[in-house]
């Protein structure tokens, strides 16, 4: 209604703003067009068969799935505490949860190295006591992805827990349901759409992770060379087709996530 009213108003069209907006939209669309234009559509099968491409795809699927599992396990409880528990220093913790969002990923990688690397703050003990080494391993790639993806999970889940009607939880308690039962049977189903949205966002972020991964986990084919890293490797080696194919995969995933979240999950959150 509002939009239609605005269209009917006798004001002149803001030509200048429209022109600027067109340039802006073009700036966003042009690189995508370039990618699609340069895609080796006829030789897709051959490009996928290039050494490294299939391996990177498989590795990315495994590591991003593992990273999402980590963000769910760490992020959901953290979000719940931030949303529901009155704690001193809660604002500090919330700011902390946002750090990976604004931190350059490569810096995140360096930080992870200094914390969890073989000589790192905690890493040296992990190595000495448990023989666990994260840096430059597949597990390290998972850690790097989880680190950058966590804010998406925490932010979405915290908003969901905050917006969930606590009176329904009260009702559940008067009916004899204790903490965990209330969470499992009332809070979780009520917040499920937002939690799924957070999971999908975190997954998309983990899948595209580059900077932190290459810094903390390096690039070892089949172990830490995920799709974004492989794109770079292929480009460096002058194999443009492989780079483009992998880029198209990431682009397709991004578009799918966008469409999925718009239609199914972000809708209720927008209200």
């Amino acid at each position, binding site marked *: 209604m509002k939009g239609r009213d605005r269209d009917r108003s006798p004001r002149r069209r803001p030509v200048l703003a429209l022109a600027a907006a067109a340039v802006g939209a073009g700036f966003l669309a042009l690189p995508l067009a370039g990618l699609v234009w340069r895609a080796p559509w006829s030789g897709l099968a051959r490009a996928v068969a290039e050494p490294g491409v299939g391996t990177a795809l498989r590795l990315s699927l495994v590591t991003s799935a593992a990273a999402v599992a980590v963000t769910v396990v760490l992020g959901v409880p953290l979000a719940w505490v931030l949303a529901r528990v009155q704690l001193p220093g809660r604002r500090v913790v919330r700011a902390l949860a946002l750090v990976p969002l604004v931190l350059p990923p490569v810096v995140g990688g360096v930080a992870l190295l200094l914390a969890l690397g073989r000589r790192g703050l905690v890493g040296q003990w992990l190595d000495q006591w448990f023989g666990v080494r994260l840096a430059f391993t597949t597990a390290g790639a998972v850690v790097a992805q989880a680190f950058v993806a966590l804010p998406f999970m925490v932010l979405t889940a915290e908003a969901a827990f905050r917006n969930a*009607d606590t*009176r*329904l939880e*009260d*009702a*559940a*308690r*008067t*009916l*004899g*349901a*204790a903490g965990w*039962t209330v969470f499992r*049977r*009332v809070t979780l*189903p*009520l917040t499920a759409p937002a939690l799924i949205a957070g999971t999908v966002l975190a997954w998309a972020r983990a899948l595209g992770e580059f900077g932190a991964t290459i810094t903390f986990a390096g690039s070892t084919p089949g172990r830490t060379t995920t799709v974004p890293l492989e794109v770079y490797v292929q480009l460096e080696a002058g194999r443009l087709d492989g780079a483009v194919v992998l880029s198209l995969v990431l682009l397709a995933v991004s578009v799918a996530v966008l469409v999925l979240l718009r239609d199914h999950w972000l809708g209720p959150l927008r209200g």
Partner: protein
Amino acid sequence: MTAPGLEAEVELTLGPLVLAVGLSVAPGETVAVLGPNGAGKTTLLRALAGLVALDRGRVVLDGEVLEAAPAGPWVPPERRPVAMVFQNHLLFPHLSALANVAFGLRAGGMRRAEADRRARQWLDGVGLADRGTARPAQLSGGEAQRVALARALAVEARLLLLDEPLAALDATTRAATRRNLRRHLAGYRGARVLVTHDPVEAMVLADRLVVLEAGRVVQEGSLADLTGRPRSPYVADLVGVNLFRGRAQGDRVALAGPAELVVASAVADGPVLAVVHPRSVALYRSAPEGSARNVWAGRVEGVDPEGARARVRVGGCLPIVAEVTAAAVADLGLAEGTPVWVSVKATEVDVYAE
């Protein structure tokens, strides 16, 4: 050993509200808690359910101490034998009506098949046997509130709390749901506390009325007690009588300003309340000559028809409400702004010490 039923002393501060209420309810008795918005009615129920902690006081149910503050036991809401029907029903939107009713039974550890079987019986009890698979969003307001009632009854608690259970319903549905509720309350063995701001609801459903204002009990008793001896302007307004506060001196009560009432009943000098039932207030277009001792001039401020009668609000030195027949409104041509004479017989003024 304390008496069976509910014995509660509730003292707590929540934002601007300072609640200090003593309440006792016998098993099988329904007490209605009435009061204006913000009086603390809902908070009182939430405190009894354990959803809000007491600063001081205690909640004892059938001799079992559920809460004693500041130092004493505190039984969490999920372990109190207390069920609650919430305003706006608060059914779980993701569960079917049947699963909503079965929720408490399942939380209590009952097996699914048995819980569903009993839930079906309770749904049948509120006349909704065929709506078991419906989601709350598919139920009408009245149906949802009946499911909410069944959900609370199903856990067979010893104290039932009802927070404005009918407030969200339209007038037609409300009457039907009220009858349904009345029948179920009659069959409920535990104590029940009903929060409402509707005196009709309180009268139909409750054995005793407690009026809460600004976190305190201003009056309790039967509806007749409240009507005959209202202790605050809110109570008077609630039951529809005129209440005046003043000082008795001999056969006169000096009110605020220059106004005074002549009364017939003997009362000790001092601060008093005077009640005049609207039916006892007569209206005239010209100064009446008669035996009435209280006569004054005023102006009509509003006429509210109620069936064959009308309540006429008269402003002036002594604002008062008169209840007259619709025919009288027509004969006297009463409308907003009409100058009228008001008369009240001294014998119709009921005076009692404040």
